[in-house]
């Protein structure tokens, strides 16, 4: 050894560098692990944990018996595939096997083949497979003829009962449907969404980079709430008859739609509520693509000009203000000059019937007679308008009835205190023109007219889960005596007019009601200047009961084409009051009217005398 040529000082320098580097490494480590710890650890946890919701089973909807299932949730299967895991030739084989299993043809088969033979990591092949198909596919997977696919159960809402019309489900418009996200749309499904759906169970689990859940790491954050069942006030049997009658009438009358509500006037329970045309709620997607307006329930969501059924409220205002009673004589002149001769109103047939007692004015639906009463309700047009508008408001028009269905609309009232009515406005209002209401509002207001004067809240749900829904006590809007007089007036209408009597009266039962026939103004006609359509809206609201009124039935036939059109004579193949009788007969046979809730009021005497005797005559 000749001596060392390496440098101890340089070795020490190297050591110093090592120490410096390691100190800086520890410092950097502490920066990430201690100083940045909270922020980064939160990011890491967010990355590795997966929060997901398991929807609760949606509640079933039963009819009022609690045994007939109107809507329920079942498992259907989604078929998904992972084509990227298979060799291209194998993908085609699997696609062919699946097409044979599912019985697909044409475009469906081509589309499935295209998806199955793609290079994608995950594709949904088809959805909503029933148990039978799913088990066939499972058998094929076990036999290895089908590979690279998975079946996932998904909740699927079904409406098992067929409706009254072909290709519909029972009470489709009333119930609505449930979309892919489990959210109810329209009707009961929408208005009771949170009750039916419950609260989903919220689970947090760890996942790996491929999004697979790591076993045994899931924690339940919120246990969730099971969806509750609903028991409706709807009677499935009556609902079906109702839909069949509406179909028959709607087709015969060549109407755009026909709706009816059968309601208990004392509790507001709706026994049946239907509209022709309806739809198949199990096939809502096709309808959503084609005609989403079909989902709208016109009974609560669509307003129209009611016409002469509003004469009952003119009568009510006249009675209450002591301006008129059933026997007050009124001279029907066929037409009436208003606003200083600038405008005239007419009876529908433009004929004068001469002196009539007021009850006959209502029975024969004389526009001029009603207008004369309305014009004299108060001192001058302003006060009379205010009295009539207040009466409407009191009976629930212009505000929501509060029915537990989705998308109810309040209707349109013109408030005379904001913009005073002219005489012609008041006269038109006397027979239901210049106002827009919904059928459910009419049914509710007529219920108040006949039930002793209580404005009830209509509802379709009788019970939630195992709890009965409490019936809200309505407010007394008119006196019991006034209600009795209105009931009698409607009884008179049906029995006084021969064609009503022939087609409305049911032997063994007392029946009353009021018709309304309204022209339809279409602003698009006559090159945009507007004009009357050749179709009419027909309404009949009546009651039926042994003695006292037990059911209120509101019938609306929209845009019906009359058999002939003469002045004041637009007969239908099935008149609204005839449809009322058919529905009432069905109701008698399906509901046991004697078991319906009793009332405190004794049966009204058939020919009750007016409580007061206004001396005014209306020349």
């Amino acid at each position, binding site marked *: *050894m*000749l*001596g*060392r*040529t*390496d*440098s*101890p000082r*340089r*070795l*020490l*320098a*190297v*050591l110093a560098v*090592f*120490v410096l*580097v*390691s100190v*800086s*490494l*520890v410092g*950097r*480590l*502490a*920066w*990430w*692990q*201690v100083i*940045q*710890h909270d*922020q*980064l*650890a939160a*990011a*890491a*946890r967010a*990355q*590795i944990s997966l929060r997901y919701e398991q929807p609760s089973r949606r509640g079933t909807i039963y009819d009022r018996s609690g045994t007939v299932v109107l809507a329920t949730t079942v498992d259907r299967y989604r078929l998904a595939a992972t084509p990227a895991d298979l060799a291209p030739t194998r993908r085609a084989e699997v696609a062919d096997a699946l097409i044979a299993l599912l019985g697909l043809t044409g475009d469906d088969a081509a589309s499935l083949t295209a998806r199955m033979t793609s290079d994608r990591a995950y594709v949904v092949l088809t959805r909503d497979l029933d148990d039978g198909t799913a088990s066939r596919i499972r058998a094929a997977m076990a036999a290895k003829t089908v590979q690279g696919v998975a079946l996932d159960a998904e909740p699927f809402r079904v409406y098992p009962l067929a409706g009254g019309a072909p290709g519909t489900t029972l009470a489709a418009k009333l119930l609505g449907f449930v979309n892919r996200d489990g959210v109810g749309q329209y009707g009961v499904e929408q208005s009771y969404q949170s009750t039916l759906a419950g609260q989903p169970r919220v689970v947090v689990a*760890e*996942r*790996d*980079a*491929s999004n697979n859940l*790591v076993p045994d790491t899931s924690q339940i954050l919120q246990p969730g709430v099971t969806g509750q069942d609903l028991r409706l006030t709807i009677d499935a049997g009556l609902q079906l008859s109702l839909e069949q009658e509406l179909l028959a009438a709607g087709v015969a009358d060549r109407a755009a739609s026909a709706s009816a509500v059968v309601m208990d006037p004392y509790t507001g329970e709706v026994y049946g509520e239907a509209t022709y045309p309806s739809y198949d709620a199990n096939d809502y997607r096709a309808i959503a693509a084609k005609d989403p307006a079909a989902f709208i329930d016109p009974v609560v969501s669509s307003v129209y000009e009611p016409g002469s059924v509003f004469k009952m409220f003119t009568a009510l205002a006249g009675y209450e203000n002591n301006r008129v009673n059933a026997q007050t004589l009124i001279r029907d002149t066929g037409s009436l000059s208003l606003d200083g001769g600038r405008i005239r109103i007419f009876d529908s047939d433009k004929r004068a019937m001469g002196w009539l007692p007021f009850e006959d004015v209502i029975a024969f639906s004389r526009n001029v007679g009603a207008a004369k009463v309305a014009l004299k309700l108060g001192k001058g047009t302003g006060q009379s308008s205010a009295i009539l508008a207040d009466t409407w408001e009191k009976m629930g028009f212009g505000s929501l009835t509060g029915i537990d269905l989705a998308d109810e609309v309040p209707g349109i009232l013109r408030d005379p205190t904001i913009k005073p009515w002219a005489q012609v406005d008041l006269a038109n209002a006397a027979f239901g023109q210049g106002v827009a209401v919904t059928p459910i509002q009419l049914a509710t207001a007529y219920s108040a007219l006949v039930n002793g004067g209580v404005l009830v809240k209509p509802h379709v749900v009788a019970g939630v889960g195992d709890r009965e829904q409490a019936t809200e006590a309505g407010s007394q809007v008119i006196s019991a005596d006034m209600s009795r007089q209105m009931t009698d007036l409607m009884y008179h209408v049906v029995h006084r007019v021969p064609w009503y009597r022939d087609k409305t009266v049911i032997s063994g039962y007392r029946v009353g009601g009021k018709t309304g026939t309204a022209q339809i103004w279409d602003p698009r006609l006559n090159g945009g200047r507007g004009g009357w359509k050749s179709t009419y809206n027909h309404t009949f609201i009546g009651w039926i009961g042994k003695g006292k009124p037990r059911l209120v039935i509101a019938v609306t036939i929209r845009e019906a084409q009359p058999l002939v059109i003469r002045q004041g004579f637009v007969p239908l193949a099935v008149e609204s009051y005839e449809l009322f009788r058919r529905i009432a007969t069905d109701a008698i046979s399906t509901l046991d009217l004697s078991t319906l809730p009793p009332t405190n009021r004794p049966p009204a005497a058939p020919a009750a005398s007016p409580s007061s005797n206004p001396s005014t005559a209306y020349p």
Partner: protein
Amino acid sequence: MTAVVARISGATVVRRHSRATGSLQRERHQPDYAILIAVVALTAIGVLMVYSSSAIKAYLGKTNDSFAVVGPQVVWAVLGFVAMGVMTRVDYRYLRLISVPAYVVALVLLVLVFVPSLNYVVGGSARFLQVGPLPAVHPAEIGKIALVIYLAHWFAKTGTRVGSFWRGTLAFLVIVAPIVMLVVAEPDLGTTAVITLTALTMFFVAGASLSHLVGLGGIGLMGVVTVIASHPYQLDRIRAFLDPWKDPLGIGHQTIQGLLALALGGMFGAGLGESRLAGGLFLPNASNDFIFAIIGEEFGLLGAGLVILLFVVIGYQGVRTALSAPDTFGSLLAAGITAWLCIQAFINIAVVVALVPITGITLPFVSAGGSSLSISLAAAGILLSISRETVERGTWNDASADRGRGHGRAHLPGPGRRPVSQRSSGRA
């Protein structure tokens, strides 16, 4: 053949009577236990962490065997300990005999990886050599140890002429360049950095001219820039290093996952086997390049700091061994091995803590990988072998090289031993 054992100043001196020379004596004592303990501890931590970070992934893999990765690691650790024991017992001076053949073999192996039928590529770089049924080897690992041995031999032979340009710096470049260029061509820039820095450290310790070193540094920097600019994935790695959150699912993914793992560990760690990013398969290369992140996640700042401390122990004791080695070759060999192990460890850790761009090198003794583990252990054995012969400072064989000649150079045989003009200046 008798051996007399006596205790002299705390060291065991073994006298052997060589049949050939009859009088050659080697004074040996126990190896440096601090190094031994550090190496064994790191290897044990490695086996544990490789299992912890690979078990679930391996179980979910093709074989459904949670021991698929750690099993070979244990086998390689056992083989490596055998190699370490053998190298500890063998006189390190014999390595001078095989230094040239080892260098040549390493070059041949590094060339062979370019034969398509013999190599397979891992992760876009790091080529392995697969010959027949033998386990795959990483020739760059063999290149490292061969270069360290040969450089130590050559520096010791060259002596003070290392500081000259032609016989020193240029010759050094000629020795180092083939291996470095072959590794660059693989392309494995992480290993290139380790080899280059180790060689430069040895060159520096051996007495390189500082001005030449600075010049080399400048040239090297330009070379690095050129190589990086010519490889697209290297540019991506730089970008990911500068702002990993810019593309958290793409090029920044691995860096971010490593940092998230560290953050989950915090100060004290989640506990052994509690890693969520390794078991959950989020962190790529969790059991080799990024195993330090899993150590940080499971054992926190304390555990990760301990690993750094163990490497500092190796560095400190290695430099002490080099300082007190009995000869220049031993000193440079110890310095080279220490520099190699520490530089590779520091670069690997610096990658995980986002201080340098991703390079793809292993953490010595810890990361999964047979070649790396066994050759690192063998190198540690050489270091231990040198540590058995350390001597007290101030003895004759660490006397100044020039022995009073005044020019700082050793008296060397051969025509280039010293400038003649000094004598003829008339100073004597």
